[in-house]
C-alpha cells in the first residue's frame, strides 16, 4: 500500500468522482433491459414480449401493486415498517365496494382511501404510541383487516348479493385513451419494425384505455416524489425515518408526522384496493381478492430502494412478468429466459469493466444456466411459470439487494424524550 492510496482514506472521504447521476444510471439500465427484451422478442419470435396488450396487462396488474408500494414508501420513509399493507388493502376493497355500490366510483375511491387510512391509524396507534414491533402490528392488522372485511361483508353485502363473500356489482370508472396518439402508436406497432414497434407497443400500452384511477396512480408517483423530497413537509417526514431524535430536537413533532405518514400509507393501500374494485373489468368486492398484493407492493418498494421511481420499476416489473405469464404463459416466459441471458451478459460485461471478476463470473454462469434452460426446454410447466413474477422479484433482489439503502431509523421504536 502506498501513501497515495492512504491519503484517500481520510476521515472525510472526498466526494467520489462524480459518476452518472442516479436517475441516469437507472434510465440506462431501463434502456438496456428494453433492448434485451426487444432483441429476445425478435430472436424468439414472441412479439408478446413488447406488445401493447402485454403492457396494458402490466399496467392493470401493476397498478394495485404500485399503490401498495407507494403506501409502503410513505410509511417507511417516516420509519414505520408497514407489512400491514395487505390488511389495509383488504379494508380498502371492502370500503370501495360498499360506497361504490351506493354512490358511484368516486365515492368508492374516497371510501377505500378512508378505510385503508383507518387501518393505517390502527397501525400508527400500535407502533407509534405503544411502540409495538412494526412487523408484529402489521401481521395483526392483516388478520384484522381480513376478519373485519369478512364480517362486514356477511352483515352488509349478503342481504343484497345473497353471498357473504361478495359485494353486489359496483359501478366502474370509464376509461380514456390519448387520441390520436394511441392510434398512431398502434399503427407504428403494427408495422413490426425492430425497436420502433416495440417502443410504440410499450407507449401505446401506457396511454390507451386508462381509467382515472390509473391516472391517479401514475400521478401519485411524481407527487410522492415532489412531496417527500421537495417540500418541507416531506423533509420533516423523512427526517422522522432517518433520525427522529434529531427531528424532535429541531421542533418537528415526530409523532404527528409518523401518524400522518402511516395514515397516508394506509389510504394509498386502500386506493390500491379500490383499483381491484373500481377499474374496468373488476368484479366488486370478493373475499381473498387482494391475494397478497400488499406484500408484493412491499417487495416492490424494497426492490425500488425506497424511492418512487424505483418502486414504479418494481411494480412495473411485477405487472409485466405477471401479465406476460397470464397472457401467453409458457411460451413468453420461455422467451424471457432468452432476454434474461442477454441482460446477464451485459451485467457480466459491466462487471468485467469494473474489474469485479467474481461478480462477472457469477453473472456469466447465471447467463449460461438461463440459456441452457432456454435451449433444452420448449415450454415450462405452467405450475412454475404461474409464479414468474415472484421468482423474478426474488432473483432481482438477490442480485441488487446490497445496494439498497433503507431509511436509517426504519423499524425502530421511537419514544419522545428517551434517547
Amino acid at each position: 500500500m502506498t501513501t497515495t492510496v492512504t491519503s484517500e482514506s481520510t476521515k472525510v472521504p472526498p466526494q467520489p468522482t462524480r459518476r452518472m447521476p442516479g436517475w441516469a444510471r437507472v434510465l440506462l439500465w431501463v434502456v438496456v433491459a428494453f433492448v434485451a427484451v426487444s432483441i429476445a422478442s425478435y430472436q424468439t419470435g414472441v412479439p408478446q414480449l413488447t406488445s401493447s396488450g402485454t403492457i396494458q396487462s402490466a399496467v392493470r396488474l401493476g397498478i394495485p401493486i404500485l399503490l401498495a408500494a407507494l403506501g409502503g414508501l410513505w410509511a417507511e420513509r417516516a420509519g414505520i415498517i408497514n407489512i400491514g399493507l395487505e390488511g389495509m388493502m383488504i379494508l380498502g376493497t371492502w370500503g370501495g365496494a360498499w360506497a361504490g355500490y351506493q354512490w358511484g366510483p368516486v365515492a368508492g375511491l374516497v371510501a377505500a382511501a378512508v378505510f385503508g387510512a383507518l387501518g393505517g391509524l390502527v397501525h400508527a396507534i400500535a407502533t407509534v404510541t405503544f411502540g409495538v414491533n412494526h412487523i408484529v402490528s402489521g401481521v395483526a392488522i392483516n388478520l384484522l383487516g381480513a376478519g373485519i372485511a369478512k364480517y362486514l361483508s356477511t352483515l352488509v353485502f349478503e342481504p343484497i348479493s345473497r353471498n357473504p363473500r361478495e359485494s353486489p356489482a359496483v359501478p366502474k370508472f370509464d376509461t380514456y385513451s390519448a387520441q390520436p396518439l394511441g392510434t398512431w402508436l398502434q399503427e407504428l406497432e403494427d408495422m413490426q419494425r425492430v425497436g420502433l414497434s416495440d417502443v410504440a407497443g410499450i407507449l401505446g400500452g401506457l396511454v390507451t384505455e386508462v381509467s382515472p384511477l390509473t391516472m391517479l396512480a401514475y400521478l401519485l408517483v411524481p407527487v410522492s416524489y415532489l412531496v417527500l423530497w421537495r417540500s418541507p413537509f416531506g423533509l420533516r417526514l423523512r427526517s422522522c425515518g432517518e433520525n427522529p431524535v434529531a427531528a424532535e430536537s429541531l421542533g418537528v413533532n415526530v409523532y404527528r408526522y409518523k401518524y400522518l405518514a402511516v395514515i397516508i400509507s394506509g389510504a394509498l393501500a386502500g386506493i390500491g384496493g379500490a383499483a381491484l374494485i373500481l377499474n374496468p373489468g373488476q368484479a366488486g368486492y370478493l373475499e381473498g381478492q387482494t391475494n397478497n398484493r400488499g406484500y408484493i407492493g412491499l417487495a416492490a418498494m424494497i426492490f425500488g430502494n425506497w424511492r418512487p421511481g424505483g418502486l414504479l420499476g418494481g411494480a412495473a416489473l411485477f405487472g409485466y412478468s405477471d401479465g406476460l405469464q397470464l397472457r401467453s404463459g409458457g411460451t413468453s416466459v420461455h422467451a424471457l429466459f432468452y432476454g434474461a441471458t442477454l441482460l446477464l451478459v451485459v451485467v457480466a460485461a459491466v462487471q468485467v469493466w469494473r474489474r469485479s471478476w467474481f461478480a462477472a463470473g457469477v453473472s456469466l454462469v447465471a447467463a449460461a444456466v438461463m440459456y441452457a434452460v432456454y435451449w433444452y426446454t420448449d415450454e415450462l410447466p405452467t405450475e412454475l411459470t404461474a409464479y414468474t413474477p415472484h421468482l423474478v422479484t426474488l432473483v432481482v433482489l438477490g442480485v441488487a439487494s446490497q445496494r439498497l439503502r433503507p431509511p436509517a431509523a426504519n423499524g425502530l421504536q421511537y419514544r419522545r424524550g428517551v434517547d
Partner: protein
Amino acid sequence: MNNWRVRLLPAALAIVFSVVLCSAVLLISGANPIDTLLEMIAQVGRGMTAVNIVNTAGAYYLVAIAAAIGFQMNLLNIGIEGQYRLGACVAAIVGGAVSLPFGLHAVLVVVIGAVTGALWCGIAAVLKVYRGVSEVISTIMLNTLSIGLIAFLVATFGEMRGNTQGTVPIPASGQVPGIPLGGAGTMFGLVLLSVAVGVGYAVLVDRTRYGFQLRASGLSPTAALAGGVDSKKMIMSAMLISGAIAGVAGLPEILSRDHTFTINFPTGYGFAGLAIALLGRNHPIGIAFGALLWSFLDKSSLTLDNIGVPKEIVTILQGTIVLSVVVAYELVRRRELAAEQRRVGRALGTEAPAPAGTGGERA
C-alpha cells in the same frame, strides 16, 4: 423481569380486552356475546372437537416454535407457511414411494419433512447472509413459489383419486398410530413430537450455549458480535432449524390421519404460528397455551353458524388478541423497567438522600 406478573398479566389483559371488544362488535351486529361464548365453550364437549383442538394445537405448536426460534434473534420467518406445506408434500411423496420397516419408515418421513423445510428456508437464509435480502420479503416470495412447486410435485409424482389430486398414500408401515380415545376421537401420535420439540426448544434456549448465542444475537446483534457470536452462522442455523421444525408441522395430520398430501392440504398455519409465538412470548409453555387457545377459537368457531353468528368474529378476535397482547406487553414492560430503576435507586439511595447518577456517588 422474569416474574409471573410480567408473563401472564399482559396476555390475560389482552384476552379480556379482545373479548370485550368483540362482544361490542357482536352486540352492535345484533348477536348475544354471552350466548356466543357459551356456545363456543359447549362445542368443546361435542363430538371430537376436544381431540381436534389438541391435534391442531400440536401442529400450531410446531409452527409457533419455528416462528419463535426466528423471533429469538429478530428473524421473521414469514415463510413458515410455505415450509410446512412443502415439507409435508415432499415427505408424503417420499413416504408413499419407499417401503421400510414400521417405525423407521415414519422416521424417514419426518426427517425428509424437516430437511425439506430447512432447505426451503435455507434459500432465504442464504439470500440474507450473502446478499442481504430481507428475510421478510424473500420468505413471502418463497411462500408463493412453494404453491407452484407443490402443484408441480403433486402433478408429477402424485395420483388422481376422483377429483382430488394427491400423493401416493403412505403404506401402513409408515403411518403413526394415534391414541384412540373412543368416541372422542383419536389423538395424533405425533402430538408427542410437538411435546418433544417443545422440551428441546426449552432446553436449547435456556440451557445451551447455542441458545445463549441465539438470544444474544436477538437482544443485541452488535453486542453478540463483539462477544464472539458469528452472526452469519447464527442466522443460517436459526433459519435452518426454524425451517426444519416448520417442515414437520404438517406431518401429524399426514402420518396419523390422511396418509397422503392432497391439494386441499390446509393453509394458514404459518401465519397462525407467528401470532401464537407472539402470544406465548416465545416461551415454550406460553406457546403451548397460545396454540391451545388459537386452536380452540378455530374449532369452536365452527359452531357459530349454528346460532347465526358470522364465524369471522373469531378472526377479528384473533387479530385483536395479537395486537392487544403486544401492546399490553409493551406497557407492562415500560412499567417494570421504571419500577426496576426505582428499585435500583432505592437500593442504592440509602446512602445519599438525593442520588443523581448512582455511579457518581462517592463512598
